[in-house]
């Protein structure tokens, strides 16, 4: 029995070691994740309180509050955006550094109450502007993230693996022998997956929304262009990955290399506010980040079309770029 077992074990080990794609991704992916997580979440310890700062401190020494320990200070250039965050208790206090020195505090926030005491101890002359507003429940904040994550997996893996399977089985080669063009084939794949995604996302929105008692602050109709543009961009990205390769290991590895950073950096589970600037810059390269930013803007803040237009433009542009590249690099058969 042991001889047979060892024989199969040896053959399987050889297969694994000679399958370079799997070997590389098996070793590389965890290393990349550890390095990536270290960069994103490493660095100095975060504070207990978050205070938004309007304007720059020309003389930091003139603001003794800025040297308080356990308080994380976040520069917020737009007053409207800063007040929205305070209303939703995403920051605990907002301080204007330009004279006349004043601050805004959410009177419904327990952390706001404490951090106000710290401010007044350091800068008793600051004038007070009270605001009110309940904190956004985590489940409400997470809801768009879950929908977006489902969309991402369905778009990338659903399209990428299907095209790869078609190529490996010879089905693409057979289609190539017909009048069907690469553009027609790819468009059909995009439209099929888009229809499916919109239907599933619609059902999930209605179903989960009813269960958790979610009510969108903005127009639900505005979520349609977000979903369409986002799904198109991610489907096209999946097609780009699958356009040329014939190995499951390579395609699977590339899809993982794309999905894991998006899972961690696009804001599905937590906000990247306060993370290094370059991390936020990288995060904004991902289509999912724009989907979630625009969906949250509509669903939680009641944003209108004008406010989410930059996200929609980015998603549309990336969809077109990925589709063009996918069509250009598309291969019907295994080379």
């Amino acid at each position, binding site marked *: 029995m042991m001889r047979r077992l060892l024989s199969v074990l040896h053959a399987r080990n050889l297969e694994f070691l000679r399958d370079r794609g799997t070997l590389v991704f098996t070793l590389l992916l965890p290393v990349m994740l550890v390095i990536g997580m270290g960069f994103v979440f490493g660095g100095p310890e975060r504070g207990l309180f978050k205070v938004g700062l309007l304007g720059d401190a020309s003389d930091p020494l003139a603001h003794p509050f800025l040297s308080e320990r356990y308080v994380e200070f976040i520069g917020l250039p737009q007053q409207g955006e800063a007040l929205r965050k305070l209303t939703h208790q995403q920051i605990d206090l907002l301080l204007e550094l330009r004279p006349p020195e004043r601050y805004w505090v959410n009177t419904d926030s327990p952390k706001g109450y404490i951090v106000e005491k710290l401010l007044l101890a350091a800068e008793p002359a600051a004038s007070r502007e009270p605001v009110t507003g309940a904190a956004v429940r985590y489940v409400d904040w997470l809801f768009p993230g879950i929908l977006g994550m489902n969309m991402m997996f369905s778009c990338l893996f659903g399209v990428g693996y299907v095209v790869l399977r*078609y190529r490996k*089985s*010879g*089905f693409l*080669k*057979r*289609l*190539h*022998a*017909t*009048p*069907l063009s690469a553009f027609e084939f790819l468009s059909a794949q995009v439209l099929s997956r888009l229809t499916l995604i919109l239907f599933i996302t619609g059902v999930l929105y209605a179903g989960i929304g009813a269960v958790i008692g979610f009510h969108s602050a903005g127009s639900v109709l505005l979520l349609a262009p977000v979903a369409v543009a986002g799904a198109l961009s991610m489907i096209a990205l999946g097609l780009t990955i699958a356009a040329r390769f014939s190995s499951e290991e390579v395609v699977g590895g590339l899809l993982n290399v794309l999905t894991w950073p998006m899972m961690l950096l696009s804001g599905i589970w937590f906000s990247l506010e306060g993370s290094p600037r370059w991390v936020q810059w990288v995060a904004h390269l991902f289509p999912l980040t724009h989907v979630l930013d625009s969906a949250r803007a509509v669903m939680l803040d009641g944003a209108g079309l004008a406010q989410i237009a930059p996200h929609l433009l980015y998603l549309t542009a990336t969809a077109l770029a990925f589709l063009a590249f996918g069509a250009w690099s598309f291969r*019907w*058969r295994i080379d």
Partner: protein
Amino acid sequence: MSAAILEVENLVKQYPGTTAVAGVSFSVPEGVCFGLLGPNGAGKTTTIEIMEGILPPTAGEVRYRGEPLGARFREDAGILFQRTALQDFLTVRQSIALFRGLYAHGLEVDELVRLCALEKLARRDARKLSGGQQQRLLLAIALVNDPAVLFLDEPTTGLDPQARRNFWELVQSIKARRKTIILTTHYMEEAELLCDEIAIMDRGHIIAQGPPRRLLHEHFAEVLLELPRQEFPPAARELPLNIIDASDRVEISTHDLEATLRTLLEARVPLGHLRIRPGNLEDLFLELTGKELRP
């Protein structure tokens, strides 16, 4: 003879380190069944894939009705590959309908189902067909556009004898509709039965071309004498004859039957189980391409 529907001129296909097709030229008259024969690695599948327009040649050209392969050819050509997977979870009828939708003109799905004897299988999942049924479905798909030229690349490889014969009948019914058929096969019986004209390829070259009877006449005018191996005395192997060992028999090919028989009788070779037959396409094929095993 009809005008050529396909013309192949100086076709070359090179891969790194190897030349699969080395300057092949021939033409296919309209309405004939043209067989492309050759041992493994001879270059027939590469040649046929270039003719189908799915593989670019390194050099040379294929013309359809006098024009380079293009949109018109794709509308007019039907193809059955050696191995083709279909889309999962579709029935036989849905698989045919999918391909029918890719062409501007063609036959109705019902007619194709009937033509390829798929009536009882029309609602079955296409993945659950036997080998012969699968080939009939793939033939129906190759016929969706009522093609002027039909490519069949080793269509009966792996089929049992009944399924093979059933497939031959289908191909003959297509021939009766005056379609041009390009067939590659390893089965000489199939080529002899179906082909009006054949080209034999070896090592990337065409080494013989013409109607099977004429080729036999030109290249293999001998008759074959077959004797059971156990009845053939070892000493008789020294006779000045063209003796070929087959698995259970010994074959002797000769132009002069009378002289060969006299030689065998003089050597006291028992002739009780002697069989005499004319050469066939397989004999010609082996004569031209040799008997050594190809890598």
